[in-house]
């Protein structure tokens, strides 16, 4: 009886861990896909919008924190949506 409880607990742990690992893997895959999509959106928004007024600057010229402030400034100047600004920021921070 005690052994069957032990095996049952072990099975629950193994299956649960497998499920959690699978869930984590799928979540990570989902996050990765979302991140890739956001990067692609950010690259396109950066290319489409920033060059409308000025030469595009090298993403490596600024740190993550500096881009955070610059993009907030440019969001207002260029009438970007908040989502576009986040996408561009994500792209610049990933590219510097």
């Amino acid at each position: 009886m005690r052994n069957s409880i032990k095996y049952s607990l072990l099975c629950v742990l193994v299956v649960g861990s497998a499920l959690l690992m699978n869930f984590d893997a799928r979540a990570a895959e989902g996050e990765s896909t979302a991140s890739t999509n956001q990067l692609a959106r950010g690259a396109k928004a950066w290319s489409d919008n920033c060059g409308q007024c000025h030469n595009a600057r090298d993403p490596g010229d600024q740190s993550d924190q500096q881009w955070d402030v610059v993009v907030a400034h440019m969001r207002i100047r260029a009438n970007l949506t908040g989502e576009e600004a986040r996408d561009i920021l994500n792209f610049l921070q990933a590219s510097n």
Partner: protein
Amino acid sequence: MLLTGYATAEYVDPAHDSGYFGASFNPIFLYKYRDLVLGEGELEVEIDDTGDTSVALEYGTIDLLLNDSLVLLAGKFLSPLGQFRQNLHPSWINKLPSAPVGFGEDGAAPDAEIGIQARGGIALGGGRFGYSAYVGNGPRLAVENGEIEGIDSEGYAGNDDGESVVGGRLSFAPLPKLQLGLSGATGKVAITETGGGPVLDDPSRNYDVFGLDASYQVAGFDLRGEYIQQKVGNATGSIVPEGGKWDTWYAQGSYKFGSAKWEGVVRYGDFNSPHPEQSQKQLAIGVNYLLAPQAMVKVGFEVNDGLSGEPTDANRLLVQVAYGF
């Protein structure tokens, strides 16, 4: 917090007059608190022809980032009417060493405003709709020799005439790299002083602004154009009853070549004023060498057509070094 901005050094050589060097320095201060508030301020530090240094607040605003589509600005802001004044005038962005005719002080395009402004962008289908709407103190009228010489729109903290101006700009980007804009403002303005001193109780008159702008980047070309007019109405009983209209437009094309290190620019502009000595047509051509995207040496030549004998009629050679940092 971020300290950014731009610096400019130039040499201007007008025909039939002495050439001179000039310099200016424009630090921009940005302070962001989370994704809620941005404080922005730009100073223009400039040396004039007497050697004195002037410091002016180009803009200084507190921006509340309310949601994805709405930002509320309060303070002194660059005029959101048209594109050049608010986005293109910094020397490292402007592709020629000078502003288009009528886009300088006392021209046809408003400079700045003190008040509040709502602006933002809204995704619309595959494009984006942008908007700016403001209310502010409005301009002042420059009166000389019994005439309205110009409309001072640099942004005044006082409001001597007690009148306000409302305005804004709508923009639409139907395609990537294409933007179309429509601007307008309306209100009242009254003469409050002349060169001889303050003026009391001069009747108010209409003040209206209308503008159109477009820009498109395609196949390595940067194409843009803008039209804007400022108009003040007549005012019966005023010390200067007659109003006037100042309008201007320009079209500009540029192209990068030589691994994007070189850039050629052509611009044509036509500024019309009620005063012939102010009106000017201008063809400007330029070649830029880009040391970096934000640092360049610009050489430009202006063929100017104004009233004979006036500075507006003198051709000019301009060499400028611009650095955005």
